[in-house]
């Protein structure tokens, strides 16, 4: 193998696949990055066996071949070089990869490419395309609700359903549920549903960044894999194992009615919730919301957002609202769950729908029907 490429390009490629390099060495070779030549480009691949990432770097190929080298060493070395041409030459006899650039010259021990776990490819299956902004927004609003502990493995994933020209993402831990509907750029021929690890979704969100080209999704449930292809200045493929199992039937967890519906200005209510969280964190992390319909026409409806802790003290914000429909309502939330949902909705207005103090609270942005977030309350004495 003998190739030349620009330091800048190689460095960027290594940074991308570096996210898939195994951090713990169950299989030591997974701490390496696989270099190979494909379509007249240098192909970089890494995998931690749950997720695999591949990207391509423009290069001039003098001699084809493939080899693996320790990812961290290579990345740090390349990052230390000036932005200039780098020559990579594999010496078949010694098995050393020679890397030279300007007056720098290094030799790195290698492991044969044949020892690297095969990077799964997904060529067939259901293909869908989605706008990168739509995808990012969906992941941001859903993935955080996935469980982080592994007692029910399916809950550590995001359920992704494709149906005609629509997709639905859903995630739930034991206490909250987030569901987002979005449009695909094409229409899929058959309905399909898979559970993708939330970690994969978060990596995808990061890689999509501010790209504008559609993201391609290829699902092969039969092989237990999903692939995302991110286009742009460079191409990245992420292949992830799917989580096996049945995702809970969450439709039945979404209340169909409410007795109180409060329309709240997001920045204002988020600020008050953050203030309350300061007091809640020293107690039992409880934030109480008391929804008070207008008592007279001249009075606006209000929400009282309060928290108290035996040791620290208490705090109460009274926030004027645009509208409360229905009766007085009282609901208490774990402060983290409340802050999480308010933070991802971030601007505009949100509707909070409640029924009783011990039935789920439902958050919906007022400007679209795309998103619904259900949070189970804390049981407290009012």
């Amino acid at each position, binding site marked *: 193998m003998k190739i030349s490429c620009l330091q800048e390009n190689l460095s960027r490629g290594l940074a991308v696949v570096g996210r898939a390099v195994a951090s713990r060495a169950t299989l030591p070779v997974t701490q390496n990055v696989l270099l190979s030549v494909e379509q007249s480009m240098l192909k970089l691949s890494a995998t931690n066996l749950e997720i695999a990432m591949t990207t391509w770097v423009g290069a001039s190929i003098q001699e084809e071949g493939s080899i693996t080298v320790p990812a961290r060493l290579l990345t740090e070395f390349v990052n230390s070089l000036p932005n200039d041409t780098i020559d990579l030459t594999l010496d078949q006899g010694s098995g050393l990869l020679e890397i030279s650039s300007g007056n720098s010259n290094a030799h790195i021990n290698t492991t044969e490419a044949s020892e690297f776990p095969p990077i799964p490819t997904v060529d067939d299956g259901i293909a869908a395309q989605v706008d990168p902004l739509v995808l990012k927004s969906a992941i941001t609003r859903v993935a955080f609700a996935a469980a982080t502990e592994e007692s029910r493995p399916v809950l550590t994933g995001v359920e992704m359903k494709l149906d005609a020209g629509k997709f639905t993402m859903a995630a739930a*831990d*034991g*206490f909250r549920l987030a569901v987002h509907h979005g449009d695909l750029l094409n229409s899929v021929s058959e309905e399909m549903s898979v559970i993708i690890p939330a970690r994969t979704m978060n990596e995808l969100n990061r890689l999509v960044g501010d790209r504008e080209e559609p993201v391609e999704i290829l699902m092969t449930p039969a092989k237990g894999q999903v692939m995302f292809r991110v286009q742009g200045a460079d191409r990245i493929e992420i292949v992830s194992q799917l989580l096996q199992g049945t995702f809970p039937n969450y439709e039945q967890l979404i209340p169909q009615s409410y007795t109180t519906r409060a329309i709240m200005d997001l920045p204002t209510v988020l600020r008050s919730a953050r203030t309350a969280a300061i007091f809640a964190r020293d107690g039992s992390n409880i934030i109480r919301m008391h929804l008070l319909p207008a008592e007279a026409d001249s009075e606006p409806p209000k929400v009282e957002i309060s928290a108290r802790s*035996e040791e620290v003290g208490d705090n109460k914000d009274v926030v004027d609202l645009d509208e409360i429909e229905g009766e007085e309502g009282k609901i208490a939330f774990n402060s983290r769950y409340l802050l999480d949902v308010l933070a991802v909705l971030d601007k505009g207005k949100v509707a909070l729908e409640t029924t009783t103090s011990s039935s789920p609270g439902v958050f919906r942005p007022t400007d679209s029907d795309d998103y619904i977030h259900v949070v189970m309350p804390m*049981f407290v004495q009012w």
Partner: protein
Amino acid sequence: MRHIIHADLDAFYAAVEQLDNPDLVGKPVLVGGRPENRGVVATASYEARAFGIHSAMPMKTAAYRCPQGIIITPRFSRYKEKSLEVMSIFRDLTDLVEPLSMDEAYLDITAVIESGQKPLAVALDLKRRIFDETGLVVSVGVGTGKTVAKIGSDLDKPDGLVVVQPGEEADFLAPLAVNKLWGIGPKTAERLNDEGIQTIGDLACQSLDWFTKMFGKRANNIRNKAMGQDTDSVDVRGATKSISSETTFAGDVGNEEVLRHLVEQKAVGVARQLERNGLKGRTVKLKLRLSDFTTFTRQTTLQFHTDSEEQIKNAASTLLELELDPNRTFRLLGVGVANFEYDSETSEPTDMKERQLPLFTY
């Protein structure tokens, strides 16, 4: 206005022994474990107290200070019998009786006083009845609150009678040492003394800010008590705060198997006592004393109130495992259960507790 009596039987175990065996009358009687088994004095008769003997003193020390002392192994079932006789006389006077132990109780006699009797007469009458019907001597304190009544009963022992008139509580308490006040332990008393506070009167005249700094959450409570304004009610239900069982070993025990077995045995005993008393507790405690006399308690709080042998055994055993060490030998081991269902100060019924509700009902 409330009127509370604190009644405390004098040298109770010893008095029962003297009652049952007239030969012992007028002699130093030491009820407790044998000195060769590291026993301690449970009760010493007043004749023995003259030699500087007090309860909880090692019997060996007591026997050394008072060689003529007559050591008697306790007969708890007999004491319980006499205690029940006394308590039933208390209950004749009022329903509001809060027994603190076998020989001690608070009585709320507000109704009796409101019916026209004088506190002094009620107290004298009670003392006489108890002596006539049980042969035992009781010291009595009367006041408008528990604090004053309890301090009163202790002030004039044995055969004491102290009546603190309404309005005189603060004056009564003022000259007394600060450690007499409920809630002021030896450590706190030391700290207070360092600040120049010797008497309850010194304490009572401190500012509220000072109390808050010193006692935190307990500030108001202690301040009110120091000023003689004690509103704690006679708690009929809270009679029993914990049930426990402990043993001082004849020799230091390091054998882990023996210790595990003992913990289980104690746990089963406690569970049975709970069951007999219709009580369920949430906090399981393990008390240990090392060979160097270091004494400590480890405790764990269960999810639910229980009187189950299995659960108490498991909890106590887990606590023990954490303390076992090849270099440690133990001289005392005890298992206890507290935090009872009705004990609203420290627990609420589980279904009233603040908790996160689940999304799925599996």
